[in-house]
């Protein structure tokens, strides 16, 4: 593989990272919002969220990509491929994250909530001081798992013209008629990215443990 081909792959890696980071940055908090809406049983919103989550969870990312990219212009909404890719990844991960957050909320100990209410905490205070600090710690492994799943389903954005790692590898292979070296390089790049997210999880967990032991 030439250095130019390797640069093409690195460009693809940056695109994968940026698109997934943006998708997670939007989708993870959105998922939390949806989960809370269902948990506190906001009637109409909660039910809409349930439908949204079911539809998104049952639609393959590639299909959703084509629907968003070619469907929206038919409705008069112009959308660029980068924006479409970020929306797509955010939508996908928000649905899965919603379920992770929701399972965390459903298993939250009610006696803590009752205690907080007995101390006169408002709902916002209760969520910020009691629920969320424990919730994120509990959900972290599953959330990071969703991040790695998102990274691995991200090659779907190539169908709408965003050149991620896999598409970059295909391009290099199509030019040289020798797809093996770029695919091997692409695999290594994915391994490095996934390993990094898992390292990030460990770091966050350790920092949290230190803080908890200092408090104690």
């Amino acid at each position, binding site marked *: 593989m030439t250095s130019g081909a390797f640069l093409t792959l690195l460009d693809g890696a940056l695109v994968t990272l940026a698109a997934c980071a943006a998708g997670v940055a939007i989708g993870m908090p959105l998922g939390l919002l949806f989960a809370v809406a269902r948990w506190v049983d906001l009637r109409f919103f909660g039910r809409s969220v349930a439908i949204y989550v079911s539809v998104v969870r049952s639609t393959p990312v590639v299909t959703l990509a084509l629907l968003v990219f070619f469907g929206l212009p038919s409705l008069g909404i112009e959308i660029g491929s980068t924006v479409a890719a970020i929306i797509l990844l955010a939508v996908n991960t928000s649905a899965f994250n919603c379920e992770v957050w929701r399972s965390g909320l459903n298993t939250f100990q009610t006696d803590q909530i009752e205690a907080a209410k007995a101390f006169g905490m408002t709902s916002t205070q209760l969520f910020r001081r009691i629920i969320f600090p424990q919730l994120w710690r509990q959900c972290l492994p599953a959330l990071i798992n969703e991040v790695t799943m998102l990274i691995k389903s991200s090659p779907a954005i190539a169908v709408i013209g965003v050149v991620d790692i896999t598409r970059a590898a*295909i391009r290099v*292979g199509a030019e040289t008629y020798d797809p093996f070296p770029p695919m091997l390089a692409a695999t290594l790049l994915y391994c490095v990215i996934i390993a990094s997210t898992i390292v990030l999880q460990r770091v966050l967990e350790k920092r949290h443990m230190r803080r908890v032991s200092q408090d104690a």
Partner: protein
Amino acid sequence: MKNTLGAICLIAITGLACSTAHGATLAEIKARGYMVVATEDDYKPFEFVADGKPTGFDNEMLAELRKVVPFEIRQEIIPWTGILAGVTTGKYDVALTAATVTNERMQSLDFVAPIAETTNYYAKRKADDSIKDVGDLNGKSCGVQTGSAQLQMLPQLDALLAKSGGKIGTVRQYTSYSEAYQDLALGRTDCVINTIINLRSLANDKPNVFEVGKAVADQTVSAWAVSKGNTEVLTLLNDFIGKERQNGNFYKLQEKWFGQSFPNLPEKTSP
């Protein structure tokens, strides 16, 4: 569950109701100041990406087109799967790619003057001695790209083989020809059917692995496409190709990328 089904139906109905979009007319393109063209990224030698830069015959023609039109041209580089759909839905104004002209496609697209003669041939592994002529393809598996004209035109090969009592073996479809070539090299498919120009490029780059065989279909041409009835844009592009033929640049680029020029191509494809 009921809710989910309802929501899916709603999305599907909205999609169907709005599928009448069309490509922008020349006046609309001039008014907004730009035209959107779509090219592929893995269709060597027509369009491909070398060291991050789009190149090949169509990309060099595009550079010439940019010089002569009074508006900006925005290029979207996307996989084959989305190109024709993008043109029929009006997402892109021109499929600036080597799309094989077929009757089926003429139902929804208008084709510009052809850029090359692109009759379908087969390619085989160089080491495979069992295939010497078209008749030897009897019972062999064939690799083609999904949604390609090559796939649509396979019945022609079947008719050729039927004359000697044979027929095509398994047909394997790939999202891209790169994967078909790889499967051929690995021995999972016995031949790949594509245009003579693509296969010649393949065999020239990997002479020890692949070999071009013979024609497996009637003579065909490839051309750029616009959405059906977009006459003004069609005329603009026909005139452009006419001028490039007159000044000889068209033939020079054909020589450079296809290894031969095609001086006898018609000046129009769609009426």
